[in-house]
């Protein structure tokens, strides 16, 4: 172990990353692979064309047990959890009293409990937040003995179905438990790339074995955090701490779709008054939008967005080069008056003022699995 890794946590796949030639960097307190020898561009393209395997074991896996866990969770998140069907997954957020976003997360209703996946950088704080509100009859368990990986890409489901019958026919945002070569796994049809695929929770001591099995399939390559970021950016997906934060609300962050009709009518979650008012009235100061720079220069996080008269009207929160899009792509916040798709704006990138346009997201079409319709 090199000195620079000291103090960093390791996922159960740490030694596999080293065997695969992963370039390890600190991320959310963990030593994680930013890329493998294939490189960010090659990994990105491979995932869009075939299938990529990502280690996301740094993320938090939490279970809530007890009667009424769904009802209680609705006091912390604006998502509709009460009506979530068994083995279904929902995207939602933890909000604060000011309507800001504390984290975004996936919630799954299982047979007997609620399973959730939260962001690595927020997991400690999320757990503390939940524990400070949890009633005595419910139990919160952080799962620390399972790895979490994502297998993503147009070939991903077909590859996984070689080991688990039927996973290629699971609906998008659904959950099942099954064995991969005898290893009991939690399998969720979701991801963070805009592609079809699954996230797989695996007992830590068997994670390397299962990953080696998947990587041995000719369609599959290991993908690092670098390509994970460019893939999710092209898909228009938010990165917590950047595109959504405690300073942004669900309406400003353009994720109002994650708050259903019943929750908008009933409220009952932190910041409900402000959030519901913003959604119903459209009364927000700024909005998260897509930005397409007209030239070839990428605009990165922190670049100011200007109007034609050099007034600062917003800021880029995520930006870079989109390998599949074939040019620079970004997202950020602008004043509502400048948020219409097609609006011309300027980006201050170092000393240059670059032309750009407010654009629709995603930049690359999402290809989530939809069950074929019977005609």
């Amino acid at each position, binding site marked *: 172990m090199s000195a620079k890794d000291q103090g960093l946590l390791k996922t159960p796949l740490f030694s596999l990353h080293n065997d695969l030639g992963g370039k390890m960097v600190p991320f959310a307190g963990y030593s994680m692979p*930013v*890329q493998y020898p294939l*490189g*960010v*561009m*090659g990994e*990105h393209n491979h995932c869009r064309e075939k299938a990529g395997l990502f280690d996301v074991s740094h993320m938090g896996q939490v279970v809530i047990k007890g009667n009424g866990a769904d009802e209680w969770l609705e006091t912390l998140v604006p998502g509709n959890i009460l009506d979530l069907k068994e083995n279904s997954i929902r995207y939602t957020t933890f909000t604060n009293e000011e309507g800001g976003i504390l984290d975004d997360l996936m919630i799954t209703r299982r047979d007997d409990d609620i399973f959730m996946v939260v962001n690595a950088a927020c997991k400690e704080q999320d757990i503390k937040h939940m524990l400070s509100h949890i009633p005595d009859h419910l139990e919160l368990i952080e799962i620390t003995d399972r790895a979490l990986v994502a297998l993503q890409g147009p070939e991903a489901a077909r590859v996984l179905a070689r080991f688990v019958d039927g996973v290629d026919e699971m609906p998008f945002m659904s959950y099942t438990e099954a064995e991969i070569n005898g290893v009991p796994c939690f399998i969720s049809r979701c991801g963070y790339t805009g592609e079809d695929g699954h996230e797989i929770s695996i007992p830590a001591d068997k994670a390397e074995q299962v990953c080696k099995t998947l990587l041995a399939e000719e369609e599959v390559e290991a993908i690092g955090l*670098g*390509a994970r*970021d*460019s893939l999710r950016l092209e898909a228009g997906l938010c990165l917590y701490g950047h595109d959504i934060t405690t300073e942004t609300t669900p309406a400003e962050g353009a994720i109002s779709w994650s708050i259903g009709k019943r929750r908008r009518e009933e409220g009952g979650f932190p910041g409900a008054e402000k959030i519901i008012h913003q959604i119903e009235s459209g009364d927000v100061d700024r909005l998260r939008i897509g930005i397409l720079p007209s030239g*070839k*220069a*990428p605009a*990165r996080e922190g670049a100011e967005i200007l109007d034609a008269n050099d007034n600062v009207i917003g800021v880029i929160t995520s930006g*870079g*080069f989109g*390998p599949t899009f074939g040019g*620079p792509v970004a997202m950020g916040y602008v004043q509502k008056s400048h948020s219409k798709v097609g609006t011309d704006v300027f980006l201050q990138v*170092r000393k*240059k003022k670059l032309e750009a346009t407010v654009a629709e997201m995603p930049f690359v079409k999402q290809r989530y699995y939809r069950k074929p319709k019977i005609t």
Partner: protein
Amino acid sequence: MTIYYSEDHEWINVEGNSGTVGITDYAQNALGDIVFVEVPEVGDDFAKGDEVAVVESVKAASEIYSPVSGEITAVNEELEDNAALVNTSPNGDGWFFKISISDSSELESLLDEAGYKNFIAGLE
């Protein structure tokens, strides 16, 4: 002509008082796939160590520092359409700019090829 190297991984190929500058194979390899290069403008003056160009990979932007002081006399316009030249030919077609060297004594603080090889061996 003589090639010198900086500890910031630039090379400068010196002929008379003119130098051609690019980044080393080690640097392009560390940066990964390069998607954009912002080169300086002809006529701009830079002091040794000034930020003179920016290299963008998929993941990040990295500053390039001028290995010597002087005035830019030419830039590689090919990079505008094909930044990947820096990856495929860092020492050749992927050059960044030419600079007229204002103080050739600054070259003495740079490394020769053997010195640079030793330097990067120490980074592994």
